[in-house]
């Protein structure tokens, strides 16, 4: 009995101390959900964008090239991280947006592997040892940014642009026939999704005491992908819930001494989800479908966004 109580107390303190990390992963998962879920593209190198954001922000806060007071430096680092990461998304999207979706997958996979291998060799960002970073942001600030990202995602989904993205996902040819610019839209989606990863990177670099290349290995991309697939591609509530649960999963595994098996768990979870429940844990349900909220909160727009929640044509 005492051991059960102990387990839950340590779980509670783990959850509290992971709050900043949970926030970072929620933003990462939202960014990937935008690309893979809302737009139905397939990026599997999200940790690469995250790394670019984190290292851009860290390079600015650590080297402080303009010698500005710290709040200005922080703001600069966040803006630069979003801009540079968005640009990386643009560079990847340009050659891939005209091609079948699979090429984007391999390009992002290659990108994330190359970014990490370069970081291991770049001396001015500390190579393999990484960088000690100042901790400018609090948990409160991170969650403020999470709230803004959620608002952004929600508003985007029900905007004209969001509906156009959904139309393109459901049928490229039909969407193009009514004047949707496929190439431009796909580039925009990747830039936005990468930009969100850049924000997450800046928040991570400014809240963790140090960052190193090992923290952005390909495993991280798989974790973020699992969050999106577990939550349901395109589902907003599901993906946020999955991001929270899966950020805690490695910590829980560590408590029960199974840390070595975490990637095994993530990969099995991915396979089981796509085979058994491709629409995600919540399926077609969103937060605003709760009976209590339903009377006051009706989004105006396409109501069923989750991929796989629509009948599949054969």
């Amino acid at each position, binding site marked *: 009995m005492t051991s059960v109580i102990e387990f839950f107390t340590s779980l509670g303190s783990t959850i509290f101390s992971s709050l900043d990390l949970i926030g970072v992963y929620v933003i990462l998962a939202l960014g990937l959900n935008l690309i893979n879920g809302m737009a139905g593209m397939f990026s599997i190198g999200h940790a690469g964008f995250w790394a670019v954001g984190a290292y851009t922000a860290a390079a600015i806060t650590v080297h402080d090239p303009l010698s500005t007071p710290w709040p200005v430096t922080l703001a600069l680092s966040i803006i630069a991280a979003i801009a540079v990461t968005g640009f990386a998304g643009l560079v990847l999207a340009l*050659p*891939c947006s005209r*091609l079948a979706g699979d090429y984007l997958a391999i390009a992002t996979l290659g990108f994330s592997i*190359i970014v990490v291998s370069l970081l291991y060799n770049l001396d001015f960002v500390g190579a393999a040892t990484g960088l000690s970073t100042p901790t400018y942001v609090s948990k409160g600030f991170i969650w403020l940014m999470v709230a803004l990202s959620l608002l952004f995602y929600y508003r985007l989904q029900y905007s004209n642009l969001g509906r156009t993205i959904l139309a393109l996902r459901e049928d490229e040819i039909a969407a193009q026939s009514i004047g949707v610019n496929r190439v431009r839209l796909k580039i925009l989606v990747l830039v936005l999704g990468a930009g969100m990863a850049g924000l997450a990177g800046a928040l991570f670099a400014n809240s963790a005491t140090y960052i190193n290349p090992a923290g952005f290995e390909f495993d991280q991309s798989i974790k973020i992908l699992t969050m999106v697939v577990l939550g349901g591609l395109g589902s907003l509530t599901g993906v946020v819930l999955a991001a929270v649960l899966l950020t805690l999963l490695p910590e829980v595994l560590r408590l029960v001494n199974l840390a070595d098996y975490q990637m095994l768990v993530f990969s099995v979870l991915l396979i089981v989800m796509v085979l058994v429940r491709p629409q995600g844990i919540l399926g077609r349900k969103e937060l605003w479908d709760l009976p209590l909220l339903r009377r006051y909160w009706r989004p105006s727009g396409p109501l069923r966004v989750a991929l796989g929640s629509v009948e599949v044509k054969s």
Partner: protein
Amino acid sequence: MSEFLQFLINGLAVGSMYALIALGYTMVYGIIQLINFAHGEFMMMGAFVGAFTLNRLQGTPLAVALVISMLAAGLLAVLVELVAYRPLRRQPKIFVLTAAIAVSVLLQNLGRIVFGSSAVSFPAQFPQGSIGLESLGVWVEYSQLFVLGLSLVLMAALWLIVHKTKIGAAMRATSQDIDAARLMGINTNLVISFTFFIGASLAGAVGVFYGMQYSVDPLMGVQPGLAAFVAAVLGGIGSLPGAMIGGLLIGIIENLVAGYLSSTYQGAITFVLLILVLSIKPTGLLGRMAPVKV
């Protein structure tokens, strides 16, 4: 000049292995339009089976170990296709791609748990050494000769299977139009399984070649897998001669870059090549773009 020739020879030896892996990617892509991310892991599994056979069963001839490795990798691929890919064939593409990447991570981690994360080495198979061509100042290692020679044999065998046998004709028909092939009475499920088997057994053979020259570890499939994929795209995905040419080219370019610039950027160069090919000629050297019909 002799330096350049030496890089060229090393590049050919590595490139022939990339070519064999690229053939598997391109065959699977040609038949079900799927990038099989787990393909590099079939190579890793082949390497472990080969190392296990040679280390535990002392005195096994290399040829026998090679065949066992190829069979093991091939059967694993058939199993993966049956369990994880086939049920998703009619679903949106993103689900089967997700399954493929998940299988890749799963196999890496199973490898790590079952075999341990430390590298395993192959028992020495050949007398160490090399043939020197004094006049050119170039050395060819015995193992490089072996790999080059056997790669050519395997490619020739593949060509014979695809072009001179009944199942090969079925494979070509299925890759042209899977529905029409089924209407003609071809068992397309069997053809797909067979394609996975052949592709992965080539990767398994490469695993043994790789293990003989370097060492065997659970993550060994990642880098060659990526390089071979780029090779398949460079040659034109879906084209068998394209995959062979692409593999050799990537091997040579990597070795020239590593030799003249720095080996640190070897992986980065592969990636830059991929982006260049996709920007300039996405159909690759020998590929053709299929028009989308409604």
